[in-house]
């Protein structure tokens, strides 16, 4: 399950008691139940939907509880082109998510504007919100998104702070 034991109580107590630290238990819980806030604005969102559906099944990794309210989520998946009119909305949604929160920038467009080097497109959402994991590809395959979620999980297990919330574990 990914919960590291700190003490060695297992042998002495027939495995009925384990000792660990609060941080580890909390992180273990967080990691296995990330609630994503989908921000799908273009074709990448189609792959995100496929990731969530039965064939790829993101719920195997505990992240199937998609919330359409940012106040109930801790993982923002930006999948698609973000225009200059949409960016303030995205920023507002990010701000509404409770800490700690993680951000995945999915696809070339969200990460750097992709092929749309035009007047209306944000050339990378990381100019305005902190991004934890970038996914390359146009569009990335669902496996790539799953991999990104696993990377976020790894980050949580390691105790590292999310990009945007540097002080949360201090």
């Amino acid at each position, binding site marked *: 399950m990914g919960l590291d034991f700190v003490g060695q109580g297992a042998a002495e107590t027939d495995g009925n008691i384990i000792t660990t630290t609060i941080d580890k238990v909390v992180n273990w819980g967080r990691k296995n139940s990330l609630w994503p806030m989908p921000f799908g604005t273009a074709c990448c969102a189609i792959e995100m939907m496929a990731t969530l559906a039965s064939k790829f099944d993101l719920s195997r990794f505990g992240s199937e509880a998609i919330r359409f309210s940012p106040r109930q989520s801790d993982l923002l998946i930006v999948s698609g082109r973000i225009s*200059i*009119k949409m*960016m*303030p*909305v995205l*920023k*507002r949604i990010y701000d509404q998510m409770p800490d700690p929160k993680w951000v995945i920038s999915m696809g070339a467009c969200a990460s750097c504007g992709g092929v749309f*080097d*035009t*007047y*209306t*497109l*944000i*050339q990378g959402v990381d*100019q305005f919100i902190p991004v934890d994991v970038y996914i390359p590809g146009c569009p990335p395959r669902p496996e790539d998104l799953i991999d990104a979620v696993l990377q976020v999980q790894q980050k949580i297990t390691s105790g590292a702070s999310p990009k945007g919330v540097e002080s949360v574990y201090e």
Partner: protein
Amino acid sequence: MSEENQVEEEPKPLVLEKLEANHADALLAQDESRGTVVVVIHKAQAYAVLEYLKTDPELAYTFLVDVTAVDNSQMESELMQFDYARFMVVYQLYSYQGQGRLRVKVPVHENDLSIPSVTGLWQGANWLERETYDMFGINFDGHPDLRRILMPDDFDGHPLRKDYPLRGRGERERFNFDKQNV
């Protein structure tokens, strides 16, 4: 052999016949493009002609498919053709009475960017004209709500004009989060 090569003269489309009979002075040019009749109309009579096209029982172009514009400022020959009119407002019409498609073009000069709104004829023109205003800066007189529809309200300029730089004028790097009503 020679008879076989001869192309049979198509009968003149009804819409051209009727326009020539009723609005000959408004008709600047006529053309045909891949089976669609194209007519260029003088701006002063644009509303009257469009109204005629819609209400005439035989023509009955009741469906306004699209309203858009073309910036010809980088096509000298096009500009010359209609007395240096930079823009061409394009109405795409469809008739269910068997007349099919019709494209109506109206030259608009840069120094007078207003043209009558056709929202009174086709309700659907509302958002189409807003888009044309947003992208080209054409002012539709009598439009009930002529605001930008695609770009943010505080956007400067009209991005589909040929003199608008593709990468913009720095809008995508600097914009005000507070100013926009989120």
